[in-house]
């Protein structure tokens, strides 16, 4: 963060007025702080993606294959045939500009190519120039251009400045989803080996070890047991999680970010405590898997195909272990993939029929909304438990928390998970204030680091992109004294702490199940002095 300007200075640089020149004549200037490092060739090679080689975006030569143009254009042709979205979204944008000021990267940077419409035009102009008659004949007049090296570089730079959050799509009168265009654009870039390392290496890691951090099975188990030690120290209760255990009804899959970095680790402790509670009180067992130890799917930021390859592990593991259904942890794009892609991608091949419509024997609830994927979100699961009074909760333990809720983009706009986490949060925290209407629910703002952009080297981009979110948080902080930002996404939990520190330092970040676990009262637990973070509980400060 050392090179970052001070917040006020960064904000002063933002001007929404674009230059007077035509955008096609404005050169793309690749600025450090706004792009991520190129992918490590070993990672690219490991998963067999094309053109693995060392390269540097700041150098002139990107070491592309000789026939790169042909590869890209063929790739476009193929995708136009495979995705109606691609064709329709290329054709029907009227450039009304309703989406223009909806993107957090535009709001925070003022860079006109970060207006979603223009981000899409980068690709659309080539579509017109190479695939439509009008564009071929009329050229510039029809907004068409040819695919040149400069254009390709512009694509790379700006498609990796989109966190695929879909906010723009909410406002478009035709539902044009720039995230979908970015996804396909990134797929095309991948065909010639243009990726970023914060995606390529997690992909390789997930493929090999099951999780994006490359944690090997024994270490994964160690880490969770380490959390159990902490929990035992705080509560006197020691969770005994099971791993890769056959014959357990429920397989649990969560983003591995929660296993690795604060404050996600507290959420992870929350899961462990909840499962232990359910086991002790109701005999319901849940197993973790080291093989399918990642919910987050970095393949989604690479290509549909890579997404499918990584996603397959969840069903393969459920099949192998004989689990009846899968419970999914708090993760953003993991849920976008589960909700919108998983069943179509891998359901028929890997769900061999022993799995059942998720059913919670404790409450008697059948999750009909997950009848086909057999996957339930943990916020749905916990909300159901609370609704039926199955958890003994003591809200007062969270009484030093004044919470606001961040609707993580993917569950919000790709699924519609809005009330379940709020219901749970309200059951465990007294003081809850929502941010202004224009910044929550389907209009929620991205954390600035989604879609694989959560790297260190692009911190300027992240701080700019996170400005709208942080701004809304600061509003409720000043108005209601909010001091905690809750969310159901592991990337949020990784991205928000530095973002908050930069724009709104008084606010901390947590996941939903950290709050649940703090409030959860175990029979026979020792009197708790601290919360999961080791901070004194309200009323215990003086003792």
């Amino acid at each position, binding site marked *: 963060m050392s090179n970052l300007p001070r917040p006020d200075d960064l904000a002063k640089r933002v001007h929404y007025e674009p230059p007077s020149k035509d955008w096609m004549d404005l050169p793309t200037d690749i600025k450090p702080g706004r792009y991520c490092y190129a992918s490590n060739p070993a990672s690219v090679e490991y998963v067999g993606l094309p053109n693995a080689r060392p390269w540097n975006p700041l150098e002139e030569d990107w070491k592309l294959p000789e026939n790169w143009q042909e590869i890209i254009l063929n790739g476009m042709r193929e995708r136009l045939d495979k995705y109606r979205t691609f064709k329709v979204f290329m054709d029907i944008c009227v450039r009304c500009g309703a989406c223009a000021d909806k993107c957090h990267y535009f709001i925070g940077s003022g860079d006109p190519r970060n207006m979603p419409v223009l981000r899409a035009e980068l690709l659309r102009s080539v579509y017109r120039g190479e695939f439509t008659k009008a564009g071929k004949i009329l050229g510039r007049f029809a907004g068409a251009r040819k695919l040149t090296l400069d254009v390709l570089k512009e694509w790379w730079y700006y498609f990796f400045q989109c966190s695929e959050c879909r906010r723009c799509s909410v406002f478009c009168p035709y539902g044009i989803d720039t995230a979908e265009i970015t996804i396909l654009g990134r797929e095309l870039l991948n065909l010639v080996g243009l990726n970023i390392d914060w995606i390529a290496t997690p992909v390789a890691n997930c493929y090999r070890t099951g999780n994006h951090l490359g944690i090997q099975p024994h270490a994964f188990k160690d880490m969770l047991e380490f959390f159990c030690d902490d929990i035992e120290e705080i509560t006197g209760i020691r969770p005994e999680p099971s791993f890769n255990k056959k014959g357990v009804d429920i397989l649990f899959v969560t983003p591995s970010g929660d296993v690795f970095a604060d404050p996600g680790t507290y959420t992870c402790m929350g899961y462990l405590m909840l499962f232990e509670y359910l086991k002790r009180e109701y005999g319901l067992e849940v197993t973790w898997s080291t093989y399918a130890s990642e919910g987050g799917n970095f393949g989604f930021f690479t290509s549909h195909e890579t997404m499918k390859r990584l996603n397959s592990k969840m069903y393969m593991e459920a099949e192998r272990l004989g689990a009846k259904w899968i419970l999914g942890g708090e993760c953003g794009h993991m849920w976008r993939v589960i909700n919108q892609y998983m069943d179509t991608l891998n359901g028929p091949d890997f769900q061999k029929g022993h799995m059942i419509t998720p059913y919670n024997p404790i409450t008697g609830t059948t999750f009909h909304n997950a009848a*086909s994927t057999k*996957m339930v979100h943990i916020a749905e699961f916990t909300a159901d438990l609370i609704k039926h009074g199955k958890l003994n909760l003591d809200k007062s333990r969270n009484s030093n928390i004044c919470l606001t809720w961040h609707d993580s983009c993917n569950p919000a706009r*790709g699924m519609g998970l809005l009330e379940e986490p709020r219901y749970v949060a309200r059951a465990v925290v007294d003081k809850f204030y929502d941010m202004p209407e224009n910044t929550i629910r389907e209009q929620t703002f991205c954390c600035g680091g989604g879609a694989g952009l959560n790297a260190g080297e692009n911190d300027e981009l992240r701080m700019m992109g996170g400005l709208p979110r942080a701004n809304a948080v600061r509003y409720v902080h000043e108005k209601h004294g909010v001091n905690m930002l809750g969310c159901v996404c592991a990337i949020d939990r990784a991205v928000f702490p530095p973002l908050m520190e930069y724009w709104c330092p008084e606010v901390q970040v947590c996941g939903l199940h950290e709050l649940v676990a703090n409030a959860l009262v175990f029979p026979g637990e020792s009197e708790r002095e601290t919360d999961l973070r080791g901070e004194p509980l309200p009323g215990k400060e003086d003792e």
Partner: protein
Amino acid sequence: MKALYSLFLVFALVLIALLGAGAAGWQYAFGVVIPYVAAVVFVVGFCLRVVKWARSPVPFRIPTTCGQQKSLPWIPQAKIENPSSTGGVIVRMLLEILFFRSLFRNTKVEMYDGPKVRYTSSKWLWLGGLAFHYAFLVVFLRHMRLFTEPIPWPIGMLETLDTILQIGAPTLYMSDLVLVAAASYLFLRRVVVPQIRFISQAADYFPLFLILAIALSGISMRYFTKVSIIDVKVLTMGLVTFHPVIPDGIGPIFFVHLFLVSVLLVYFPLSKLMHMGGVFMSPTRNLANTNRAVRHVNPWKFENVHYHTYDEYEDEFREKMIEADLPVDKEGPESAEEGASNV
């Protein structure tokens, strides 16, 4: 600059019609041949375009959810913004198509006090767009009186409603007024708002100028240059009954009007105006969010997809797993040996 190009282009079109149908007297070409060709291009082009879209499948179910999903029975679902039934989807689409629902949400962003951002409601584009499209629709329907005999009563009704203010003689059509005002607004917005100017292309100005020119030529015929409406009807009825006739004495301004309409019809399927068809085809809006409840089938298959299976995984990590007391499917060679030596 792009706006000027487009303006010149529309002027040129007007000139072509004036010279062609007026000075050169090619009235048959401008009154019969070109309109027929244009109509055919429009219908065929429109259908081809929609068919072309429809030929690409929708492999994944990707609705943009703008409200609460259907989940637990006690959580109220946003049945329209996040529909889970065909009925919900239909209502969502109707709201979108008839009332521009998504555009209604529009906000405007402002930065103030350094790093503070504010979003204010901004319904002008929604209003302008809605006014433009409805006025266009009314004008279009009103013109049906020229193509029908007897004139169906709804068209008569529409006309009565449209002139209900009873201003001037001939009475002013409100739709004319609204159409010109709305199109002018949409144009001004493109030149005045810097961001919109930046994203605008010739292809955005051209149809606006074209439609404005069509509207203005129509208005001028009715209120100023006065063409013989009876002759016009003879011509239009001739066209629809496929017995085209060109009555004498229709002013050249009529041919300008007709020619511009013909150009619009030809331009339509080649351009962004196809949003009229495309709005129905958008998978983010026209699919129900039953993604987890019902299987959605992708008609094409991924080729050569390799998976990293559990067996491969265990082969790589077996020893470490055994050491960490994690269950394994196959005992590793080492542990097998150990087992053997213990015996």
